[in-house]
């Protein structure tokens, strides 16, 4: 719930981040279905984000203890995890139906110092450690200051990373933790290893971070993620059953055949048993706490609820669930456990509506669960998911803006090829409307076999203006999956069962090795490197040797490709090297239990236990900006000779005679404070040059060339398991800081201005030919070659009013998908945004207002009229 300083339309809330300010003008406004969930939501809104040292404290105490510190991976880790889980303080709040939380506080995270301690230390101590790689990125990151954020110290609470609050009395523990892990953390060991064995590539890698050609390495922030979970084993075997299973596999081993491979399996199963014991103890502690609360509670109603909770927790601490509520509680426990053992974002429950459906259906058919109760439970689930925070220092938050990307996919097909929609999934959508929290976000897997009724229900949810559900294309996803994993044996049924991982990534369901990413790579910064012969103009660091020739457009393009190949290859290869430390120190053991076929194979994820081990390269950002910049250079410098290369560079250095966006704190290209007029003509030429998003083949072809070349480069890079990496393009909110790190660029963008988001969204304010032209541009290449593409679009609510309007929005989505588009998501403009558009019309150049037969851009409408429209539309709603 960050309230970013970024302009409204560029803010993270596309992914479902809920702004608790007034939202009028929506056709549908949701309200929590019961007083209970209303109260829980209020508590969530009131809560501040806390940093809790409990988990890492107990983890570290065990990790360094004499008995286990000589043990090999992953057993040492398993024992430390068990100790941590077993010793956590249980906190249950009155009114909760689903219980258990990440920290002692309603909203919070733990500082995962075993991953990285420098970033956390500099955030807590407010001193920047010179070795802190995240510092370059942090310096350019601007965060929100409102909502649950703790941007400054207040009273006995210390602000960490301008986001978290930690109690003063806990600070000595944090200090002790950081001191212990200094040199031992996965990040430190990864970088030291890289320094020793990577040769000159290490220097290049460091320069990539220092110049912010890419954001800080994932070992510093969050290495794990972009994955869906398989809850099959917990649900079908239960925690005890899983322990029994591991024991039986150990018992099967013949003592006379214990080679190194068999030993590693034996160790792994023992490790899993330790972790399972830890989970069991953790759940039982909570059960005891519920019992205790039940004993002292005076209200009979609440007392009964505590007793119910105790009964449920005792049961699921060992057994398989007996009903829907227990199944949901058990899924929550496991989901939470993964969040606690790792620094992970994009951990998605996947097709939860499919997973839980049998329990739901049975309860409903037997009359044990009415719709209202089911809805209430799902609303409680939404609060739970939203309470999850991730701590990784400021750089992480600039990239993620506080969202943990728990993504539930609805729709799609069943393994047998029929539509997978069901009543539970409809309720999941309904709960997203009544309880509009940031998490979990919802994605509709669009397939022509889905019923119109189901899809129109999803459109209703879109109309609430929260930004979800997003829509993704089942056919494109299946094409990608079978192409990416077919050679590893992926079947058609498995392809149909896929779920969205992270925000929008195509991933096999609960069966894949996952790497979140090393960071985000800025293609606009690459353009700068080409312009300045291999030197970053902002930091003056030379990243690459100067090109031999730069006389024609073909030369320019060749250098672009060459620089891209060199930097991208080293940067992605370093990920594999860094992963050695991940495997050594921070393997996901809870995560491995939830990934097919780790338990069966006897190997954790980092040892190749997953069914599918092909992953993707770290994402590139701002392909659209790069295409726009290259189009300007090609046209103005090399074809029309309207500007010389030197004149262009001079203008860029001078920021076209404007103040930097960093200075003015205005991050749109049109909000400018001019200091001199000498470059006005050049700026106009650059801004008027062809822009992606207008169905203009001149620049669309350049875009296609960039992304296809990028694809060819990463397909030549091996991942940790020797598989070719797949291309990935998305920004999360990194396009903010990455933009702040760029000077003025040939696309007419000013210094410090945020880059285009997503992967095929136009740069704000440059798509001037309407929605179909934008979509045509987005369709200029093959989406099924990519892990995802991403498009955000703004639509006025009047355009999709009523059932007719909903059907038309659906037609737009279907047209985009039928023609090969993978993802689309909508910002339904509401009066809050219209008000913002009044103050900042430059952000909304392309916002159209439609009335029958009439045309006008919102920004052209005078303020008095705008006021009237805002008022009138609400008035019409009342009438």
């Amino acid at each position, binding site marked *: 719930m960050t309230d970013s300083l970024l302009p409204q339309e560029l803010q993270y809330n596309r992914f479902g981040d809920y702004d608790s300010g007034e939202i009028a003008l929506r056709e549908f406004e949701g309200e929590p279905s019961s007083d209970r969930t209303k109260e829980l939501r209020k508590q969530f809104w009131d809560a501040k984000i806390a940093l809790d040292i409990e988990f890492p404290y107990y983890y570290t105490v065990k990790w360094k203890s004499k008995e286990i510190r000589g043990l090999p991976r992953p057993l040492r880790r398993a024992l430390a995890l068990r100790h941590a889980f077993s010793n956590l303080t249980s906190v249950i709040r009155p009114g909760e139906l689903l219980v258990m939380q990440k920290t002692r506080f309603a909203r919070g995270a733990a500082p995962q110092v075993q991953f990285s301690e420098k970033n956390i230390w500099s955030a807590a101590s407010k001193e920047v450690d010179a070795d802190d790689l995240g510092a370059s990125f942090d310096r350019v990151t601007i965060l929100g200051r409102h909502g649950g954020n703790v941007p400054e110290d207040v009273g006995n609470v210390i602000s960490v990373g301008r986001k978290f609050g930690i109690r003063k009395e806990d600070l000595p523990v944090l200090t002790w933790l950081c001191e212990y892990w200094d040199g031992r953390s996965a990040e430190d060991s990864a970088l030291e290893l890289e320094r020793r064995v990577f040769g000159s590539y290490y220097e290049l890698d460091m320069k990539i971070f220092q110049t912010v050609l890419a954001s800080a390495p994932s070992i510093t922030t969050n290495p794990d993620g972009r994955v869906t979970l398989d809850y099959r084993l917990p649900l079908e075997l239960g925690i005890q059953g899983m322990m029994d299973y591991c024991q039986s596999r150990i018992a099967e081993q013949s003592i006379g055949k214990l080679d190194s491979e068999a030993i590693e399996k034996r160790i792994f199963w023992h490790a899993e048993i330790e972790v399972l014991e830890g989970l069991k103890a953790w759940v039982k502690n909570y059960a005891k706490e519920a019992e205790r609360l039940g004993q002292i509670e005076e209200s009979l109603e609440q007392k009964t609820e505590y007793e119910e909770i105790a009964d449920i927790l005792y049961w699921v601490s060992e057994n398989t669930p007996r009903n829907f509520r227990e199944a949901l509680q058990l899924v929550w426990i496991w989901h939470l456990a993964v969040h606690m053992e790792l620094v992970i974002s994009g951990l998605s429950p996947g097709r939860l509506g499919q997973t839980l459906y049998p329990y739901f259906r049975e309860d409903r058919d037997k009359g044990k669960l009415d719709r209202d109760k089911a809805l209430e439970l799902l609303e409680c689930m939404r609060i739970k998911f939203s309470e999850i925070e991730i701590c990784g220092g400021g750089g992480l938050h600039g990239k993620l803006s506080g969202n943990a990307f728990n993504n539930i996919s609805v729709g799609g097909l069943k393994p047998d090829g029929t539509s997978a929609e069901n009543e539970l999934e409809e309720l999941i959508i309904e709960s997203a409307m009544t309880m509009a929290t940031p998490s979990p976000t919802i994605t509709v897997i669009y397939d022509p076999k889905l019923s119109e009724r189901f899809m129109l229900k999803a459109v209703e949810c879109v109309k609430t203006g929260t930004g979800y559900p997003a829509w993704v294309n089942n056919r494109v996803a299946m094409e990608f999956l079978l192409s990416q994993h077919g050679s590893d044996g992926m079947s058609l049924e498995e392809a149909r069962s896929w779920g969205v991982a992270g925000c929008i990534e195509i991933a096999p369901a609960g069966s894949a090795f996952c790497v979140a990413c090393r960071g985000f790579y800025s293609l606009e910064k690459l353009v700068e490197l080409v312009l300045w012969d291999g030197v970053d103009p902002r930091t003056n660091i030379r990243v690459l040797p100067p090109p031999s020739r730069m006389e024609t457009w073909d030369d320019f393009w060749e250098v672009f490709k060459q620089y891209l190949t060199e930097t991208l290859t080293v940067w992605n290869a370093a990920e594999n090297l860094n992963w050695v430390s991940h495997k050594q120190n921070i393997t996901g053991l809870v995560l491995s239990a939830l990934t097919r076929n780790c338990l069966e194979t006897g190997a954790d994820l980092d040892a190749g236990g997953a069914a599918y081990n092909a992953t993707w390269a770290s994402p590139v950002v701002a392909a659209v900006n790069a295409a726009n910049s290259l189009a300007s250079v090609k046209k103005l410098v090399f074809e029309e000779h309207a500007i010389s290369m030197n004149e262009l560079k001079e203008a860029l250095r001078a920021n076209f005679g404007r103040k930097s966006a960093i200075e003015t704190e205005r991050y749109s290209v049109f909000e400018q404070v001019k200091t001199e007029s000498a470059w006005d003509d050049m700026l106009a030429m650059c801004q008027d040059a062809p822009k992606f998003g207008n169905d203009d083949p001149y620049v669309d072809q350049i875009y296609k060339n960039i992304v296809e070349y990028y694809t060819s480069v990463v397909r030549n890079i091996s991942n940790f398991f020797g598989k070719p990496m797949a291309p990935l393009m998305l920004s999360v909110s990194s396009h903010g800081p990455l933009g702040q790190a760029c000077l003025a660029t040939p696309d007419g963008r000013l210094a410090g201005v945020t880059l285009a988001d997503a992967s095929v969204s136009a740069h704000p304010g440059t798509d001037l030919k*309407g*929605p179909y032209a934008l979509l045509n541009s987005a369709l200029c290449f093959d989406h099924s070659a990519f892990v995802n593409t991403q498009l955000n679009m703004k639509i006025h609510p009047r355009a999709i009013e009523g059932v007719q309007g909903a059907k*038309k929005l659906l037609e*737009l989505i279907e*047209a985009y998908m039928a023609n090969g588009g993978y993802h689309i998501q909508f910002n339904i403009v509401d009066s809050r945004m219209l008000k913002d558009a009044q103050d900042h019309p430059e952000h909304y150049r392309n916002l159209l207002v439609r009335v029958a037969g*009439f045309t006008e851009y919102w920004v052209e409408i005078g303020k008095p009229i705008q006021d009237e*429209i805002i008022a*009138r539309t609400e008035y019409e709603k009342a009438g």
Partner: protein
Amino acid sequence: MKRLASVVGSHQDRLPLQSEAKGLVFDVLSFAVHDGPGCRTLVFLKGCPLECRWCSNPEGQRPYPELMHSNTRCERCHKCLQACPFCAISVDEEGSLSISRDICLRNGCLQQTSVPCVQACNTGAMTVVGTCMTVGQLLDRMERERKFWRRSGGVTLSGGEPMYQPQFAVAFLEGCHQRYIHTAIETCGHVAWEYYEQALAHLDWVFYDLKLMDAEKHRQYTGLSNNLILANLERLAEEQQARGTPRVIVRIPLIPGYNDATDNIQQIGAFLAELGLNEVNMLPFHRLGASKYERLGMVCECQDLLPPTTDSLKDVQRELERHALKVYTGSRTPF
């Protein structure tokens, strides 16, 4: 401003219906959802025989390209002034620009591909509205839109008055039908019937404006009498009855103080009932177009007029329904 002869050919010309026929287009809008069935693309042709006081597309009135100058985007750099070879631009005491548009017209500046004042402007404050295109070019543009219409959408011709360029409009509509594109038109009715006749062969839907039944008031408020408009509507209704096509929806812009009096509404209701046209789309007055007037150097007479109240909309709806008409208000349409 005096109405000059159309630069694209007079009504007497009968050019052959070919894809090279040229027309003046002032906008193409995608994802139009209230101008016919399905998701559509709106094409706006420039030029109109009427000059309604409440017009919300003033840039569509005159049949030649015009300059639009935005004060909000203007930086007052005066480059346009310096670039103009005919001294058509000057600055008043407050520093605001003043454009002598008759000079632009006389010198034919805006017909050219490169207009000096527009080229000189760095902020996009100075623009030209009205682009010349051939039917072929416009049809190609429609093909780029087409994939988003799915099976129920299509193109809606609007403006201005699309039939003010009859050869172009008819050729375009014919071209659409040849390509199996669904067609609709938004028309004011003041068109020689022979042109409607040609167009009807290629039209699926017609949105027909009806503002005032009183001829004198009609002349007073729109510049022309309504005789031709009413006569055409009668013939259109007959056509529809005889052939079952096109679908006809009568559009009534409701302008408080101008045409919302009960007697006018009652007469409209009776007239339509008699013709057997029973679908009405009532469009409440709005001032979204106000800034366009400013940018065109025009004065909007209805500048301070307020939109109709909810109650008055209800009254009008009730009156029309008394005549057994189906009334759709604003964007609340069943298509």
